[in-house]
Structures are given as C-alpha cells and as structure tokens.
C-alpha cells in the first residue's frame, strides 16, 4: 500500500454502510461497505451489473439514505457533481443553460454562473456548441455536456456512474482519455462506477472490487498507472497483465453469467458445438442452442 496519494488528507469515509430495500435478505443491496477516499484520489468501483454500485453513489450524494452506517465528509457542505450513465440533459435548455443548471442549485450569482459555464464548456471542448439544444448533439457530446454540468461546481467529489457505457466504442475510447485528463487536472476526488476492468484500471489510483448482490467489498487494489493517459499505454505497462488477472479472478466467481471474461474458454464451447453437430437427431439442435452458449 504505497501510493503517492496515501499521505493526502481524507476526503470522505464510507463507514459500515448497509442498504436494504424492503424487508428480508432478498432486499439486501449493500452489506457493510467501508472504505476511505483521500483528497484528489481517483477510485473505481467495479462489480457485477446490478450489484448495488449505483446505490452506493446515490447514498454518497444523498439521493438515498443508508439503512445503517454513514458517510463522513471532510468538508461541511461538500460540492458533489454527478455524471449518470445517460446524459440526463434538460431537452428544453441549450448546452449553456444545461451546464448552468449544475451551479444554479448552489445559489451562485448570475454573472458568476455565466462565466463558470463558459469555463466548464471549454474544459469539455464544446464552446462552439454553446447555443445548441441536446437533440442537435451526438451521444458523446451530450455526455460531455453532462460532465461540464458537474465540473461547473468545481466539485470536491465527482461521482460517475458508468458514464461511458452508453457510447459507441470509438467515442468511448476518446472520451475516456479526455475525462481522465480533465479529472486528473481538476483535483476533484473522483468515484467511478464501472464494470469495464480496463476503464477501472486506467481511471484510478485504487480499484474497489465488489461482490455480487448483496455487495461487499472484496478487495481494494492499488493501481500504479498514474502516468498512463490511454488504454493503449495501459496495456503495455508491465504491471497490467498481473493486476488485470487479479481483478478478473476476484470477479470471476461473482459474475459467471454476466461478463464475457467469465465464460468458459472458447475451446470448450467449440468442442461442445461439434458434439451437437454430429448428433443425428433434430433435438440436437435445441441441445446446442441451449448448452453451446452459456447464459
């Protein structure tokens, strides 16, 4: 546990947070979640889909109350920016006015909101599109507007809930690098929820690996990739294969049916398929479609 962020002060502390929706064990979502986040640190939370990662972010920004436990912030009234999976822009507001929405809630003066909106829009390089409406922008641009809406707050804590998940692969790659660059320079403490292991490794100082529902913290792993600015750089790092394998092995038992990495090796699928193909009976076809591709 030696990283350069270790000696920084604590930004927030998640203390034994439990969350249950409804009664009984079926409603349990989060189980005794505890970890510290230091100022300016980039934390990724990885775990299987639907494990409760988003619920944790909702608790962090006070959208949902924890059933037990608490979140302790270093500052009295932390400024929290939230970027969702979908951009969630107001369709009747221009780019400028959407970005301003972030700060309007903080009761800032009109003139200041105006200046800082321009600043935030410049950060995400959309200054040419200030007066357009969301429907006139591509998905990637819309998500950048959503990021600017969070950045205008100069947030102490930036929460991102799978912000790249809805984008096409190309846009996603570029935006990932751009966002990494922005958050590294903004100094905001960042919590990124994702189920993409590469994204998590690139975007963080530490990766919190969660179990399937109800979610527990399985392990928190330090990432040495602070100098990497893209996935291409990341995958050439000598430490990359070992750490990726470690995270994958931690997740494998949790997600056997959710992420491609957890599927049986291709050779196993092939041998099963050829077996089904050689079967002379028509029922073999149904057997192949139900067994050949594991669900």
């Amino acid at each position, binding site marked *: 546990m030696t990283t350069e962020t270790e000696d920084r002060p604590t930004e927030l502390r998640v203390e034994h947070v439990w969350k249950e929706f409804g009664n009984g064990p079926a409603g349990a979502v989060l189980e005794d979640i505890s970890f510290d986040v230091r100022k300016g640190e980039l934390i990724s939370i990885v775990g299987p889909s639907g494990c409760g990662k988003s619920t944790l972010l909702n608790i962090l920004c006070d959208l949902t109350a924890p059933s037990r436990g608490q979140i302790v912030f270093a500052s009295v009234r932390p400024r*929290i920016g939230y970027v*969702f999976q979908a951009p*969630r822009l*107001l*369709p*009747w*507001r221009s780019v400028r006015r959407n970005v301003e929405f972030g700060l309007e*809630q903080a009761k800032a003066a009109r003139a200041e909101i105006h200046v800082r909106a321009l600043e935030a829009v410049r950060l995400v390089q959309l200054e040419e599109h200030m007066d357009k409406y969301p429907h006139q922008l591509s998905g990637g641009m819309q998500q950048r507007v959503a990021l600017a*809406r969070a950045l205008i707050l100069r947030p102490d804590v930036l929460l991102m809930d799978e912000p790249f998940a809805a984008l096409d692969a190309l846009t996603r790659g570029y935006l990932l690098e751009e966002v990494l660059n922005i958050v590294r320079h903004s100094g905001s403490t960042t919590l990124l929820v994702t189920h993409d292991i590469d994204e998590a490794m690139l975007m963080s100082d530490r990766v919190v690996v969660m179990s399937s529902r109800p979610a527990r913290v399985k392990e928190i792993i330090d990432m040495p990739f602070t100098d990497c600015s893209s996935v291409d750089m990341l995958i050439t790092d000598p430490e990359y294969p070992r750490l990726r394998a470690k995270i994958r092995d931690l997740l494998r038992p949790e997600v056997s049916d959710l992420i491609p990495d957890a599927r049986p090796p291709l050779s196993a699928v092939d041998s099963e398929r050829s077996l089904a193909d050689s079967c002379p009976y028509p029922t073999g076809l149904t057997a192949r479609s139900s067994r050949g591709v594991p669900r």
Partner: protein
Amino acid sequence: MTSTRSRLASTRRGAQVRRAPDGARPQSRLVRVTRIVAAGLVLLGLWWLASRVYAAYVLPGPPDVWNSFTAAVSRGLWAQEVAATLAHLFAAIALIIVIGLPVGIIIGRFVIADDLTRGILVLLQTVPTIVLIAVALVFIGTTDSSVIAVTVASGLTYFMLNIIQGSRAIDHALIEMAKAYGASERTIMRTIILPSTVPYFLAGCRIALGVTWQVTLFSEYLMGTGGIGFQISTDIKLLDTSDVFMWGLTAVLLTFLFEYVVFRPAERYLTRHVKKAQ
C-alpha cells in the same frame, strides 16, 4: 404508370435513376399558396352563382354579406360584438388555464387527487352543454358570467386531461438528476415539471380553444348576453340571413387569426428545442 415506364426506358443505357413520385416531390410555397387561393376563389364564385338562384333571405350573395359587414362596422356594432365575444372567450380560457394547470398537475402526481376528482371530471365531460346552459341560467342568470361559466365547464376537462397526461409523462431520471444537484421541490417544479408539460399544455389549449369557440357562441345565442352568438339569434328571428352569414364569417376569420397570429407563433417559440420533423 406510363410515365414511369418511359423514364426507365430513356435511362436504360445510362446509370439507373430513381426519382421520387410526383406526390412526394417538394413543392414551392408560392405554388401551394396560389392553389389554395384559387380553390377559395372558385368556392366564392360558386356561392355567388348559387345566390343568384335563391332569394336573398335564403342564400345571400357575397355582395349582400359585404354590405352587412360594412354597415355593422360603420355603426360600431361589429367591433362592439366582437369585443364582447372575445371577452367571454379570453376570460374562459384564462380561467381554464388558471384552474386546469395546477389542478391537472396535482391530479397527475397524486393518486388520491385523481380518485377524488375522477367523478367530477367524468361528469363535466359527459353532461350535455345544453344542460350546463340550463343550470347556469337557473343559478347565475343571463349574464356574462353565465356564458363564461358554461364555457369553462365545457372546456376545462379537455384541457385538464392533457395536463394530467403531461404531468405523468415526466422523465423521473431528470428529477433524480436535479435532486442529486440539490434542487428544491420548487426548482424541480419550475425547471423540470412545467417545461415537461409544455407540449401537453399546447395540445390542451388547442382542444380547449376549439370547444370554447363553439360553446361561447352557443351560450350567447341561448342566453342573449351580447356577442356574436346573440347577434345571430336576433338576426335569424328577423330573417336577416345576410347578417347571419356575416357574423358566421366573422367567427371563421377570428378563428383563423387566432390560429396563425397567436397560437402558431406561441407554439413555435415554446417548442423551439424540439427536433423539427423533416
């Protein structure tokens, strides 16, 4: 069919050319306006021809109606009656919006409000207008308020049903986003709920406008309170058919003016963020 065949034949040697059929080809605005005006003039001509066959008290011609119009204008009657009708209409529409917007949003958002008002909404929607007029005559009498009350009672449900639907169609992801940024309930109402209902508000206004025009004239006719409807009832008793035509066309003209001068520009402004259909 033959034209398509010959076109194909003429391009057989070159690359294949595909053209949109005539109906789908964009037409210049001038051509379309010319057609509309021409068709209108033909209609006017037919009316004029027919009026030469019948007596003036059965079917007055365009010149008779025009004379009625200039006479009414010069006596000041036209402006006075149009103003009376518009006053009824605007008062009713203003009341419909002032009542229907908040109540509609509350009904849309709270199930209990929906349950409690369901009966009265169904009642207002199904009671015949003539019954509303009769009841208003008993309770209020032959006054302007009577006309306005009947108009509001008829138009309110149509308007409110749209608002109710609109307030249920709100994107809850946006409300959650606003809450994550610390927005108050009031801010959420102003920045998300009200703008979300704008398309439904416009649809409601359009329907309410159609209904209120009809009902206002109808009530004026039966209650004798002044206004275009009242003038029509007087003129028909005197068999002054050309005046009836004149008032009828006045109502048509006002409806068009309202649509193109007030409603469409307002609609264009309020939905400027919406993707325009091709």
